[in-house]
């Protein structure tokens, strides 16, 4: 169980958070103009990386804020935490 440094609350136990999957998938502004394939790309396709992964996390049992985490899935090491809308502090 890892510790996540919530950008609003500070370090908290993983049990206070819920994971929201891959980060930086932007909902298309005009979905109706997309082909089935383009929409499917947004809707279904997710990376499942062994290594550095950009993820969304929610402090669901705390401030309830969403934010982004850069985590190495092979050893759970968290390299960065940053707010929604901010640029990733490490190269994506």
């Amino acid at each position, binding site marked *: 169980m890892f510790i996540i440094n919530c950008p609003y609350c500070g370090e908290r136990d993983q049990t206070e958070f819920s994971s929201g999957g891959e980060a930086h998938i932007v909902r*298309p502004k005009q979905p109706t103009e997309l082909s089935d394939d383009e*929409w499917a790309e947004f809707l279904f396709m997710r990376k499942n990386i062994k290594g550095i992964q950009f993820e969304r996390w929610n402090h669901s049992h705390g401030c309830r804020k*969403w934010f982004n985490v850069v985590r190495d899935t092979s050893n759970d090491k968290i390299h960065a935490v940053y707010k929604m809308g901010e640029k990733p502090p490490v190269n994506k």
Partner: protein
Amino acid sequence: MTQELRINNKKFIDQTNRLSFKFNGEKLYGYKGDTLASALLANNIHLVGRSFKYHRPRGIMTCGSEEPNAIVQIGNDPSLTDPNVRATEIELYEGLEAFSQNCWPNVKFDIGGINNLLSPLLPAGFYYKTFMWPASFWEKYEFFIRHSAGLGKSPTKPDPDIYDHKYYHCDVLVVGGGISGIMAAKLSAGNNNETLLLDDKNILGGTTIYQNNDCFTIDDNHTNYWLEKEIKNIKKIKNLTIKTRTSLAAYHGYNYLLAKENITDHLSPDERKGKIRQRLWKIRAKKVIIATGAIERPLIFNNNDRPGIMLSSAIKKFIDFYGVKTGKEISLFTNNDSAYETAISLKKSGVNIVSIIDIRDESSSKIVKEVEKHNIKIYWKHTIVNTEGYRRISFIEIMQLSDDGSGVIGKKIKLKTDCLGISGGWTPMVHLFTQSGGKLKFRSDDNVFLPDKNKTPSDQISIGSCNGDFDIKDIILNSNKYVKTFLGIENSPYDNIKVESSKEEKKKNIWLLPSDKPIGKTKPFLDFQNDSTAKDVKLALREGFKSIEHVKRYTTTGMGTDQGKLSNMHALGIIAETTGTNMGELGTTTFRPPYTPLTFGAIVGRNVGEFFDHTRKTAMHNWHVQNKAQFENVGQWKRAWYYPKNGESMYDAVQRESKAARESVGILDASTLGKIDIQGTDASEFLNRVYTNAWSKLAIGKCRYGLMLNEDGMVYDDGVTTRLGENHYIMTTTTGGAANVLSKLEDYLQTEWPELDVYLTTVTDHFSTISICGPNSKKILSKVIPDLDISDQNFPHMSFKNSKINGIKCRVMRISFTGEHSYEINIQSNYAKNVWEMCMNAGKDYNITPYGTETMHLLRAEKGFIITGQDTDGTMTPSDLQMDWIIGKKKFDFIGKRSLYRSDTIRDDRKQLVGLLTDDPKEILEEGAQIVEKLDQKPVEMLGHVTSSYFSPNLNKSIALAVMKSGKKLKGKKFFVPMENKNINVTVTDTVFFDKENKRLNA
């Protein structure tokens, strides 16, 4: 009473405190400070159990958690009995009752022992090979296996003990209170670190605390004297917390560790009363220092498992710590210097040492010379080729080793002995390090796996014997050095410490010692608990098993309750030797938590019974209880299910309630529905985006039903939302979906549409909801709120009014989930029970009938209203539900819109919601039943299934909702619902069964 095997000058045993206990029914005595094992040995009892497969007599072999044989059942109370307890770990208390496990009818005469005679027929994988076939015989085999084998008995009644959990945060956690752990704790706490020191024994000090030998000194004193002083000192340090009887169970990532504290297991049943039994510590440490020591290795030779054969280090602890002689004529068998320390301890206590058998050619270390002074016969370059004695070792047979160590030569010598100490070197306890994700490296000098400092996942170090230092001088100097670096300490009180020890110079290792007999005729045991021999491992290799993990499972080596702590290394060694592989490349099997078994009680702690999960009750809950409601769990909520009267069945109660709600008036506690308060200048736009229909034009004071989809177009939740003001709405969700809907809405607001000015607040618990439904609902409402104008003109269907009841503000909605003229009163929860009772009083003359969730479901099914989660399962689009009318086709976008015309969602052969009527109106379908068209088809095509089914008292016939392939086109068609012993004829119909014109809403 004197015990002739007891020495009475040991300070760790309180000989003024005599304790009585029973072993297999026999009454015996021991002392405060004993373990069950030391007390048994003091009573000259070695034989304590039978081995798992061959049922060979087995004795106490170790003095710690690595014990493979002395596994006992404690007590026989059906709720308190405790199986698989190691006699070497449980502390003696007055009245302790222990039983041997795994022997039937008793430990001295065991029928299963016949397996020993059959052992040529029981090779590795015997169970896999034999009992696999024929499959129909499995039941018989299982009976045989379970009856003659099995480890211990589980309690049959609930556990009455109290268990506890504790969260703990510290700067430094030190695991292990031996000499290196003590040093680390002092250095850490002495340098301003909040420090926790854990040890699984009842006192600190590890093995050094009873090391009283001239060859080992610190600052010119015996090591035990020095350490005792040191322990006294650290107990005074303020920011050091010491927990004994606390064993580390698991080491997870980010220095999260679990430890089990035994609080009362060492007390008599009387002293335990009302106390917590065990506490699970959940520890977060900034830094971890592992000082878990090492376990002595046995030697693998023919018949090495007889009672009386013990680890040499265990013999030493029994004599030096507990003051118990494990025999009168003891022999020692070794490949290293440690056994010589045991020899000196025994000699000092006046025990006769028959001989020392050493496989090395010679050794001239200080301690060996010391032993030679005592005129103890040492057989250099010899090995034991056989042992004798069924229930206790009586003789050993020794022979000289050939130069290459692969065979034996010369004459066999037979020596009489009643106890044999064996010492095969040391295995560092690296379990915790590897559990944390650390990788091991191999040191070939003495064949040990050690923590690789460069492959350590978290902020931690290993020090002392678990890091491969076995010489007390190395342990002290290196522990000081490593801890200083690890904690950034400049000066240590140990910097100028003077340590003297006997340096071991000669090493020799033979994994499987030779015998004069061929291996097929010998029994060199590797795993004592699971009875696997070196022969079994070799057989597995011959049969093609290569991976260490496979060999382990095939031979069951290391799979007992001791998890192979003792002899996994020998299995590895033999595999490496036989296959010609380097042991370091072979690697170890995976060490998994827990290090020692954990009780389920400790794992669950206080979360049992009513504390297992939260229970949510509505404000009217007590009224429902008083009125004999049966409850249904909906998530964590307790919802009134139905209210049986005069012993009614559920069916009868629901029929009565359903009729009353349509004929006069019914009342339902709808408080559990999720309620989300939505405010902000963009609230309308927000609803436009999350619901499929349009919201901007909804007038203030009006209500609207909404359907919420997932982005994949599937129905997610539904409910009525009311516009309270220009920028203020209240949304209702399903009971089960409330929390998830809120999370989903927050997610979109924060991540996709942060530009929207919208605020969400859950108010589910703040407001309670009373739903009054039926043609007489109007009369009830006008009695409860006389001031409110409830004429259809002022208060039409799908509208809302602010009002007051006895001066308390309330919101009244005229909405309906039953198709009847209905109102919902929302009021602050503190007043809700009172208002409910007012409604009941007001309805007396109208036979107002409280109804529960079951009746609610029946009434809505009559109207063909869906329940998300019952009629939908996450694969239904609005169109599948025949709800195309609710799609705002002109809307630019809403969640899930684009998915509604994906190639898959526009297929017309999707499963679609239909109504079903049984040809026999009395026949009620089962929910979940499958629907088919052709009965003789093989395999029969399943066209759909029943999602809701009831007998409608208002229509006097059975009705059902179902989902069926291409259902929209099937109206009027006939199908079958095949059941176990009949086929039910059904016809597809419209989904609305009752009041198709919706006349009753305004009745």
